[in-house]
């Protein structure tokens, strides 16, 4: 038993050395490459997801109102999702050069494949009696959409945003192959090119931490935007039932595109 523990410790010892070395490298280089590149990572991923959301909401609203629009829109965003991001980055380079747009435009397009179906599912899920109550109160179509339908759809839309943001944050690194990848730059320029593991570990760890922190922020945003789900009882219950419905429609299951 003691032998086994000792053997396990001996096996993990290089890992500990690694972790300590990575921590020290990340800490002592925070001012120069790590901090600014983390900031770039935040900028690129948040801008992509926000632009994706700004495109997905009108597309989703149109798809719900005019049902014939939905199949071609869905086919289009799914086909885009299959284009390798590497190719899109390279193809944009002649036009947008080394500006952030070269990374943001493809990443924003990828989020559409996750966000559009979620906006559509969320709006379709608005109960009919709720819609009728809004009509009876004299709400016009636009006010009904902004004040009733979209707020009721918030949990499903945020479920999509959570998947899209984790996917985008992990994909930003691919843009480092064209010199724009946030923490991917730490991984490639300081790790790959110099055959040094510590920057790679730092890049991965910060990227994962950013993804989890963003996920937490979105959960908080959902709680703030849907006070009625809190009042009804434990917030968990509302969240869980909303989540339950999503797997069947594939919204939660839809995953990040990559590379």
């Amino acid at each position, binding site marked *: 038993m003691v032998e086994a523990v000792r053997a396990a410790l001996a096996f993990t010892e290089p890992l500990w050395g690694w972790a300590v070395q990575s921590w020290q490298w990340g800490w002592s280089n925070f001012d120069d490459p790590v901090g600014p590149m983390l900031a770039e990572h935040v900028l690129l991923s948040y801008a992509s997801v926000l632009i994706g959301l700004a495109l997905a909401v009108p597309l989703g609203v149109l798809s719900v109102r005019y049902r014939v629009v939905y199949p071609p829109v869905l086919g289009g965003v799914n*086909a885009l*999702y299959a*284009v*390798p991001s*590497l190719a899109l980055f390279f193809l944009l380079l002649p036009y947008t050069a080394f500006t952030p747009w070269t990374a943001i435009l493809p990443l924003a397009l990828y989020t559409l494949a996750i966000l559009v179906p979620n906006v559509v599912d969320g709006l379709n899920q608005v109960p009919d009696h709720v819609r009728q109550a809004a009509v009876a109160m004299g709400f016009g179509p636009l006010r009904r959409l902004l004040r009733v339908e979209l707020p009721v759809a918030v949990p499903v839309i945020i479920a999509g945003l959570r998947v899209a943001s984790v996917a985008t944050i992990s994909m*930003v*690194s691919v843009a480092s192959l064209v010199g724009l990848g946030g923490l991917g730059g730490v991984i490639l320029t300081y790790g790959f090119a110099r055959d040094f593991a510590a920057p790679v570990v730092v890049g*991965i760890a910060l990227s994962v931490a950013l993804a989890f922190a963003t996920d937490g922020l979105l959960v908080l945003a959902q709680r703030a935007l849907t006070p009625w789900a809190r009042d009804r009882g434990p917030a968990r219950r509302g969240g869980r039932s909303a989540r339950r419905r999503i797997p069947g429609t594939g919204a939660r*299951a839809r995953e990040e595109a990559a590379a």
Partner: protein
Amino acid sequence: MNIASEVASWFAQPQNWSGSGGIPVRFAEHVYYSVLALLAAAAIAVPVGLLTGHTGRGGFLAISLANFARALPTIGVLTLVVLGMGLGLTPVLVALVALAVPPILVNTYEGVRGVDPQVTDAARGMGMRGGEVLARLEVPMAMPLILLGLRTAAIQVVSTATIAAYVGIGGLGRFIVDGQSQQRIEQILGGALLVVALALAVTGLFTLLRRWVVAPGLRRRAAASSSTAS
């Protein structure tokens, strides 16, 4: 207009279709890497998803690990394994497996968890054991979601396998990476179009598979629920 005709002439050149760097060979390499990675990921994720879904134990842990893997940057995983083991196929496979496991695992787990408890209770009442309930009831009923997870993973793997070219091996990514270094846009576009074609073929294949593997009664119900959803 101009660029489209250049891409068309790239596809028309016979030397692009022959030899070890030709389209058929690169296509076959790409399919080979993708199939290997998908099979390895399925061999890990499907059993774990079925077991945790069936017993209800360890589900939280499995889903948390899947979410963690989902947040890993593929470039980072690839680089780390390259630094540890050198260039070659292994780093690419490790990175692709890490990418493919989460969608398969999450969907398999949700598929089994989503089976109506009344149905499994009825099966137990008829005298089925745990293993029988899993094999004859839960797996068939979870099949639409398992296939969805496999399809999502397959499309991601196919489009990400392009980065194999960065660590010195083949696949369709060669056209994209070499096209960039030679400043030949038509070749980048040609490579990207081939990857998209492969992804569409994968989607078609899974549609056929679904027709074969999913029980007719479930198929009708899934069709009905997806038509009300959309």
